[in-house]
C-alpha cells in the first residue's frame, strides 16, 4: 500500500508559551492541508500558542510505502531526512551526500520522497539542507518531526473527537485484533531562539541576566522564570517562593507544555524523541515504569532514561496509565536535568477516573476538553456531585498553593466528604486514593530526616558548608557529631515489602546565598521516589498539576507508603520541591530492593544493618553478594579549606555549570596525587599516595558483587568505567552484550551484577577527562587471603589465613608489576603484538588542520613508515579470536622535547581546576572487556597493583586472553590522562569469532591492523568490518599553525561577538573519526553553499574514513569512543538499521546508537547488509546526531555502496 502526504516547510512564528515567549524565526513542517490554517491562526494570535503549531507527526503502517511530496517554502534548500526508513539514497535521502544526486529542495521547489517503512517504530525526520548550528540553523528553529509507524492494519483517531486524523502529536491508535492505545509524541528539543513579548531576549527576573537557553518539548516550554514573575508581581501564590510551585496548576493553571491525557488503566505509548541539537536529556515519568525494549521482556525496567540528540525510544508504561496501583492524578514528565527542568522542559500525564465529555471544568473554570474512552475498554463513570472525579474532589483554592494531603502529615487533617467519597476502602497515611500494598505484605518502616551540615569532600579540605543530606533519625546524633561519616543514605529492603517512611523536614527555612547561589527560601521539602508503587496524589513528595503538595514544612513529619512489588534496582529518592536550589548539596539517596529473603549485613562485623553504601547481602537460595552503591554528582558547590569558592559561576544563581564533582560526597582530584617525582603515571597508585578517600569497595577473590549506579546531581552526563570487570547489559538475558561501561544521567539507575575473578585492585572511574581529573574514581579491592575486617560470603570457601602482610603506602614508586607469564596459556594460539608508542604529527584533513603533537600506538614494523610520512597515522586497531591468548609488548619512545606544554599546564582543551600536571614519559595500554590479571596486565598502575607503565626505551609485556566474542573494545593509555589520550593515545581491540582471518579489502592479503578489513571464517559468510573510533577533545592547529578553538571556531554562522556564549569545558576541542575530521567550515569557505557541504562532487571525498562495499555484503560496524569529553554523541547511519541487542532476534531495530561517551563500545550489524533489505546503492552518511557542534566540527563520513564491480575493490567470496 502506498500512503501519501503532502508536506510543506514554512517559516512560522513559534509562540512557545502563554507568556508570549516566541521564536520569530521559527520553521516547521506542516501538512499542505493545514498550511493556510496555521498561517492564519498564527497571524491572529501573535503572542498565544496555537494548537496546530506542533512538530509534524504523521503516521503509517508497517510494510507500507510512504510517498511524501515535499515542498520548500523557506529561503534556503531544505529536505526531510528520515531515520529508520529504507529508501533510494540517491533520491530520498533529504540530503546531498557524496556522489549521490541532491535530494534537498531549492526554495519554492518540490520533490517526491519514497520511503519503505519496514518496521513499527519511530521514524524521526529533520532537515539536512542546512546543517548549521545556532540561530541560522534549521533544526534548532523547529524543522523536525516524526513519522510514527504502527502495526499493520492499524488506524488512528483524534482523542478528543474520535474522528480519524492525518497528523497530530496525540492519537488513539486502533487495531482489529490488538488493544487500542493512546499514542503521545513527546519531542524534546533545545537551543531554540527565544524572544520575549518585547522582542528582546528573556531576562531572568532574579539575576537580571539573560535567561538560560530554550529547553522544551513539542514547541512549548514553561519556564520557572515566567511563573515566578507572577508571584513576584503579587498576581498569584501569596507567600510562595517559586520553585516549589513551578508545576502547581492551583497557582498558575495548566502549563502550555504537553498534557498527555488518558483514563486510568489505558494502554499507552509515549514516543520519546530527541529532536534537539545539543544536550543529552533524561526523560523521567512519575509513577510509571517501562521496559527499555518494549518487545523484549528480558530488557531492563526503567523509569528514567537518557536520550541524546536525534535518537528516540518508545515508553510503554507497564500496567497502563496509573500503573499497577491505578493511581489517578497528574504524573509529571520532565527532563530530570534540573536546569532544563527549570527552563521549562516538562509536562504532565493527566490520568482521569471519570468520563470527560466536555461538560466539566477544572477548578479554575477552564473547560476540560472531552476525551473519548478507548473503544475496547469500559468507559469510566460519569462525574457526579458526590464523586466529581479528579481533580475536582481536591479542596484547593485557585491562585494559592495546592493543599496538603489528608492523613499523612502528623497532626494534620482528616478527609473531607468529597475526599472520603474518592478514597480507597481503607485510606491511611500515604495511601488514600490508590492502595499500592497487597494484603499481608510485610511492612518496613524508616524514620528519615533531611538536615543541613558541613561535609568535607577530600583530604585537602574542599568542602560544602551547606551540605544537605538524608539521615536515619537513629543516626542523627552520630552523623552530626562526626562519629559517622556522612554518605548518601541507602536503605535496603526486599521485594514484596511495604515501605513506610516517616519523613521529617529538619532543614533551616533558608538556603543561604554565596558565590554560587542566591538566598532561597527552601521552606518545604518532600521525599520523592522512583520505581516503587504509590498513590501519586498524596505521596509524590512533590507539588504537581492539580495534585496535593505532598511536602512538609520545617519541623513537620509526613508518612509515606510505597510497595516494592518485585526485585528492583536501586530506587532513587530526592526532594521535588527545591531540587534546583539544593539537590546539588547532597539531597539524594536510594533504596535498594533486593531479592526476597535477603538479609543485609555489615561487611566488617557481620551484624545486621538497614542502610549503607557498602553491605553484604545474604540469601538462602541465590549466591550471596556484596552490594555497592555509587552516586555521581556534578554542580558540587565546594569551597577550598580557606573558604575560596571553587569554580563559581559568573554570577550567583547561574546554572552555567557551577562548581565541581563528587561521588558519594567525596572526590580525589588527580592534581593532588603527584608523587615526589611528579610523574602522572603513578597518580592512581596507593603506594605513592595512599588509598583514595573515594569509595573502596572490598571483597574476596571470587565474590559476587552488585554495583548500583546512580547520579544524584545535577545536569551532566557521566560515564562509569570499571576496568577488568564486566557485566551483562540486560541482567536477565544471557545473550546480551557484555559491558564495562555505562553512561548515566541524573536519576537513572543501573545495577551491574558480576563477580571478581581474581584478586587485585580494580579501578572504577567516571572516565571522561574532566570527571577523572577532578577525582571521580576509586577502587574495588579483592583480597586473595583473609583480612580481619571483611566477613567472607557464607556460600564461598573461607579464604586462607593471611600469609603475608598487606601492602602499605610508603610514598615510594610502586614496585614493578609481576610477570604476566604466571597466567598459564590455555589451549589455543598466541598472538604477539610488538607495539610502540611515539609522537608524530597527525594531519586531520586536506585543509591542513593538524595536531603537531600527536601520540600514537603503532606496530613497531610500521613506525618508520609513519615517521617518514609514507604511511598516515591511524589509531591502532588490532584483533584476536575467541580462544586466543594475546601478548602485547609495549615500548615507550616518548620524548620530553616533543611535548608542547612541558611546564605542566595543558591550556586547551581545558578542564575545571587546571593545575600542574607535567607530561609523563611513561605510557601504558589498557584494553576493555577482554580478560587479564589486573595485577600484571591491565595496562595501568592502580591501587596496590604493581607498576604496569613503561618509561622511555622500556618495554613491558601484557598478557590478555579472549574468552568471549565481545567485538569492539576500546584501548587507551592510563599513564597520563591529560597529556596523552586526546592527543591520540588510544585505539581499539576487536574480539572476533574463533577461526577468523582478517584480510585487506583491496588486496585480500592478511593484515594485522586496520580499520577496514574483511573477516573470513570457515563457518560464517565473509563480513566487511568497519571500525569507527569516535573521539573528541582534540587540540588542532590550522594550516597556519594557529590553534583552532573548537567548537566555536567551527561554527558556520557565528553569532555577533556580544552574543557569543561561553562554551562548557566539556564541549571544548575538535572531534572526528579515526584521527580525521572534515570540518564543514573549511568546505564552506571554499564553496559557500550550505546544502552542498557533504557533496563529493563539489569537494571530493571527506578526510574521514571512506568505507566501501557492494550491495548486500554483510557489514559490521565496530564503534568505540575511547576519548574523552563528557558531552555524549549520537551515532547515526543513513538508510540502515541494526539490532540494539545484537544476539537477540526480538530486539528493537534502530538506525542510531546514542549516548556515546568515553568508554562506549558498539557492534552494529547492518540488517540486510550494505544497502539494507531494499538494496539501494549510493553514498550513505555516517555522522553524529548532534547538529550543535559535532557535524559542523567534522564528525561525519561516508559509506559507499557499489552496485557494480569496481576494479579496485574485489567482491566478497559468498
Amino acid at each position, binding site marked *: 500500500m502506498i500512503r501519501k502526504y503532502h508536506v510543506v516547510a514554512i517559516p512560522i512564528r513559534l509562540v512557545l508559551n502563554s507568556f508570549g515567549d516566541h521564536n520569530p524565526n521559527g520553521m516547521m513542517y506542516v501538512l499542505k492541508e493545514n498550511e493556510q490554517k496555521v498561517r492564519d491562526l498564527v497571524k491572529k494570535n501573535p503572542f498565544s500558542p496555537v494548537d496546530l503549531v506542533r512538530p509534524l507527526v504523521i503516521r503509517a503502517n508497517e510494510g507500507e510505502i510512504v510517498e511524501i511530496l515535499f515542498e520548500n517554502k523557506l529561503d534556503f534548500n531544505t529536505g526531510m531526512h528520515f531515520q529508520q526508513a529504507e529508501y533510494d539514497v540517491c533520491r530520498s535521502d533529504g540530503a546531498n551526500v557524496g556522489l549521490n544526486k541532491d535530494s534537498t529542495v531549492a526554495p519554492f521547489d518540490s520533490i517526491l520522497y519514497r520511503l519503505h517503512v519496514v518496521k513499527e517504530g519511530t521514524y524521526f525526520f529533520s532537515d539536512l539542507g542546512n546543517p548549521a548550528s545556532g540561530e541560522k540553523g534549521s533544526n534548532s528553529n523547529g524543522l523536525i518531526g516524526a513519522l510514527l509507524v504502527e502495526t499493520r492494519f492499524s488506524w488512528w483517531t483524534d482523542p478528543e473527537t474520535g474522528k480519524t486524523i492525518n497528523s497530530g502529536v496525540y492519537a488513539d491508535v486502533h487495531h482489529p485484533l490488538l488493544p487500542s492505545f493512546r499514542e503521545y509524541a513527546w519531542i524534546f528539543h533545545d537551543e531554540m531562539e527565544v524572544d520575549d513579548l518585547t522582542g528582546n531576549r528573556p531576562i531572568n527576573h532574579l539575576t537580571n541576566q539573560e535567561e538560560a537557553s530554550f529547553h522544551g518539548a513539542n514547541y512549548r516550554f514553561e519556564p520557572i522564570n515566567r511563573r515566578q514573575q507572577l508571584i513576584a508581581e503579587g498576581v498569584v501564590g501569596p507567600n510562595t517562593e517559586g520553585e516549589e510551585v513551578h508545576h502547581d496548576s492551583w497557582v498558575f493553571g495548566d502549563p502550555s507544555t504537553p498534557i498527555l491525557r488518558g483514563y486510568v488503566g489505558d494502554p499507552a505509548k509515549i514516543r520519546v524523541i530527541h529532536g534537539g541539537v545539543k544536550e543529552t536529556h533524561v526523560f523521567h515519568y512519575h509513577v510509571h515504569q517501562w521496559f527499555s525494549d518494549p518487545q523484549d521482556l528480558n530488557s531492563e525496567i526503567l523509569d528514567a532514561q537518557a536520550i541524546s540528540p536525534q535518537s528516540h525510544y518508545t515508553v510503554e508504561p507497564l500496567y497502563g496509565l496509573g500503573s499497577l496501583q491505578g493511581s489517578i492524578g497528574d504524573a509529571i514528565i520532565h527532563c530530570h536535568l534540573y536546569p532544563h527542568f527549570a527552563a521549562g522542559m516538562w509536562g504532565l500525564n493527566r490520568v482521569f477516573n471519570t468520563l470527560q465529555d466536555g461538560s466539566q471544568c477544572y477548578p479554575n473554570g477552564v473547560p476540560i476538553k472531552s476525551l473519548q474512552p478507548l473503544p475496547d475498554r469500559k468507559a469510566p463513570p460519569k462525574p457526579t456531585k458526590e464523586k466529581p472525579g479528579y481533580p475536582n474532589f481536591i479542596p484547593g483554592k485557585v491562585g494559592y498553593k495546592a493543599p496538603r494531603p489528608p492523613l499523612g502529615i502528623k497532626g494534620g487533617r482528616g478527609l473531607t466528604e468529597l475526599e472520603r467519597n474518592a478514597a480507597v476502602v481503607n485510606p491511611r497515611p500515604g495511601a488514600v486514593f490508590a492502595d499500592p500494598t497487597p494484603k499481608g505484605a*510485610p511492612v518496613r*518502616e524508616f524514620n528519615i530526616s533531611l538536615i543541613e551540615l558541613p561535609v568535607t569532600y577530600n583530604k585537602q579540605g574542599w568542602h560544602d558548608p551547606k551540605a544537605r543530606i538524608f539521615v536515619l533519625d537513629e543516626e542523627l546524633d552520630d552523623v552530626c557529631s562526626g562519629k559517622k561519616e556522612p554518605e548518601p543514605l541507602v536503605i535496603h529492603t526486599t521485594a*514484596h515489602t*511495604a515501605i513506610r517512611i516517616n519523613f521529617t523536614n529538619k532543614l533551616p527555612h533558608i538556603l543561604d546565598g554565596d558565590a554560587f547561589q542566591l538566598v532561597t527560601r527552601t521552606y518545604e521539602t518532600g521525599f520523592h521516589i522512583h520505581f516503587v508503587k504509590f498513590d501519586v496524589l498524596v505521596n509524590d513528595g512533590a507539588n504537581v498539576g492539580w495534585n496535593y503538595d505532598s511536602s512538609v514544612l520545617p519541623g513537620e513529619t509526613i508518612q509515606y507508603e510505597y510497595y516494592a512489588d518485585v526485585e528492583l534496582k536501586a530506587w532513587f529518592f530526592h526532594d521535588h520541591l527545591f531540587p534546583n536550589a539544593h539537590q546539588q548539596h547532597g539531597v539524594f539517596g536510594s533504596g535498594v530492593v533486593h531479592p526476597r*529473603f535477603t*538479609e543485609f549485613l555489615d561487611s566488617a562485623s557481620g551484624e545486621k544493618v538497614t542502610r549503607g553504601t557498602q553491605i553484604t547481602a545474604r540469601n538462602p537460595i541465590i549466591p550471596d553478594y556484596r552490594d555497592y552503591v555509587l552516586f555521581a554528582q556534578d554542580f558540587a558547590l565546594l569551597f577550598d579549606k580557606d573558604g575560596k569558592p571553587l569554580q563559581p559561576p559568573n554570577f550567583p544563581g547561574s546554572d552555567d555549570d557551577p562548581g565541581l564533582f563528587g561521588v558519594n560526597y567525596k572526590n580525589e582530584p588527580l592534581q593532588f596525587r603527584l608523587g615526589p617525582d611528579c610523574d602522572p603515571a603513578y597518580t592512581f597508585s596507593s603506594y605513592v599516595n595512599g588509598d583514595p578517600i573515594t569509595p573502596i569497595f572490598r571483597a574476596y577473590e571470587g565474590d559476587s558483587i552488585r554495583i548500583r549506579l546512580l547520579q544524584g546531581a545535577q545536569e551532566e552526563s557521566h560515564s562509569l568505567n570499571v576496568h577488568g570487570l564486566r557485566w551483562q547489559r540486560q541482567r536477565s538475558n544471557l545473550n546480551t552484550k557484555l559491558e564495562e561501561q555505562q553512561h548515566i544521567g541524573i536519576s537513572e539507575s543501573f545495577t551491574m551484577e558480576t563477580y571478581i575473578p581474581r584478586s587485585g585492585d580494580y579501578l572504577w572511574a567516571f572516565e571522561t577527562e574532566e570527571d577523572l581529573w577532578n577525582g571521580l574514581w576509586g577502587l574495588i579491592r579483592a583480597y586473595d587471603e583473609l583480612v580481619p575486617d571483611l566477613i567472607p560470603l557464607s556460600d564461598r570457601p573461607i579464604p586462607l589465613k593471611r600469609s603475608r602482610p598487606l601492602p602499605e603506602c610508603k610514598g615510594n614508586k610502586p614496585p614493578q608489576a609481576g610477570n604476566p607469564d604466571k597466567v598459564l596459556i590455555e589451549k589455543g594460539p598466541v598472538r604477539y603484538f610488538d607495539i610502540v608508542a611515539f609522537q608524530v604529527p597527525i594531519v586531520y584533513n586536506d585543509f591542513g588542520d593538524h595536531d603537531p603533537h600527536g601520540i600514537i600506538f603503532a606496530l613497531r614494523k610500521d613506525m618508520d613508515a609513519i615517521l617518514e610520512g609514507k604511511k598516515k597515522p591511524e589509531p591502532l586497531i588490532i584483533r584476536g579470536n575467541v580462544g586466543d591468548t594475546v601478548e602485547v609488548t609495549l615500548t615507550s619512545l616518548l620524548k620530553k622535547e616533543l611535548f608542547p606544554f612541558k611546564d605542566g599546564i595543558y591550556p586547551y582543551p581545558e578542564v575545571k581546576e587546571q593545575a600542574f600536571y607535567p607530561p609523563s614519559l611513561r605510557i601504558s595500554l589498557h584494553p576493555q572487556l577482554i580478560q587479564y590479571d589486573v595485577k600484571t596486565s591491565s595496562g595501568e598502575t592502580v591501587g596496590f597493583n604493581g607498576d604496569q607503565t613503561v618509561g622511555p626505551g622500556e618495554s613491558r609485556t601484557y598478557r590478555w586472553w579472549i574468552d568471549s566474542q565481545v567485538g569492539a573494545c576500546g584501548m587507551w593509555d592510563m599513564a597520563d590522562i591529560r597529556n596523552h589520550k586526546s592527543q591520540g593515545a588510544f585505539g581499539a581491540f576487536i574480539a572476533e569469532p574463533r577461526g577468523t582471518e582478517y584480510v585487506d579489502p583491496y588486496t585480500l592479503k592478511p593484515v594485522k591492523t586496520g580499520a577496514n578489513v574483511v573477516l573470513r571464517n570457515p563457518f560464517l559468510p565473509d563480513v566487511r568490518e568497519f571500525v569507527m573510533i569516535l573521539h573528541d577533545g582534540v587540540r588542532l592547529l590550522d594550516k597556519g599553525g594557529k590553534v583552532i578553538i573548537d567548537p566555536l571556531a567551527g561554527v558556520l554562522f557565528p553569532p555577533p561577538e556580544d552574543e557569543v556564549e561561553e562554551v562548557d569545558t566539556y564541549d571544548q576541542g575538535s572531534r572526528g573519526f579515526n584521527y580525521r575530521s572534515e570540518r564543514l567550515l573549511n568546505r564552506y569557505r571554499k564553496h559557500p553553499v550550505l546544502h552542498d557541504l557533504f557533496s563529493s562532487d563539489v569537494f571530493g571525498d571527506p578526510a574521514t574514513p571512506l568505507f566501501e562495499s557492494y550491495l548486500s555484503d554483510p557489514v559490521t560496524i565496530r564503534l568505540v569512543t575511547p576519548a574523552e569529553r563528557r558531552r555524549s554523541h549520537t551515532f547515526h547511519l543513513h538508510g540502515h538499521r541494526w539490532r540494539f541487542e545484537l544476539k537477540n532476534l526480538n530486539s528493537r531495530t534502530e538506525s542510531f546508537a546514542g549516548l556515546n561517551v568515553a568508554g562506549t563500545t558498539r557492534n552494529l550489524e547492518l540488517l540486510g547488509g550494505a544497502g539494507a533489505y531494499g538494496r539501494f546503492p549510493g553514498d550513505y552518511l555516517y555522522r553524529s546526531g548532534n547538529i550543535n557542534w559535532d557535524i559542523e566540527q567534522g564528525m561525519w563520513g561516508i559509506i559507499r555502496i557499489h552496485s557494480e564491480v569496481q576494479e579496485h575493490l574485489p567482491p566478497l567470496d559468498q
Partner: protein
Amino acid sequence: MTNKVNKTVNDIKEEALVLYFSKNIGRRVFILTEAFPFMFIGKIKGLLGDILILDVQTTSVPALEGKVWNVHIDSIDVFYIETGIGAKIPHLKDNAEEDVT
C-alpha cells in the same frame, strides 16, 4: 527408541518420576521450571496422573503463594525432595518486619 513392550524413553521417564513423586507425598520439594514462575517450594499433596499437586509455600511471586498449584512434570527442569537425608530446603520468610529501625 523403544524397549520390548514398545515403551518410549519418555514413557519410562514419566513413569519413574510419577513413582518417585508418589513415594514422597507429604514431603517438601524444591522445583525449578523453565517458564513462569520459575521456582516453587512446597509440599507434595498428591498426583493427578502426571501432574503434581503442590501445596505451594514459596515462589518467586508472593501473590501465588499459600495456594495449591498443579505442575505438569514435563515442565519441571530440576527438583529436589527433602527426604531427611541430605540438605534441608530452607523455610523462607520475608524478613521485613524484623529490625525496624
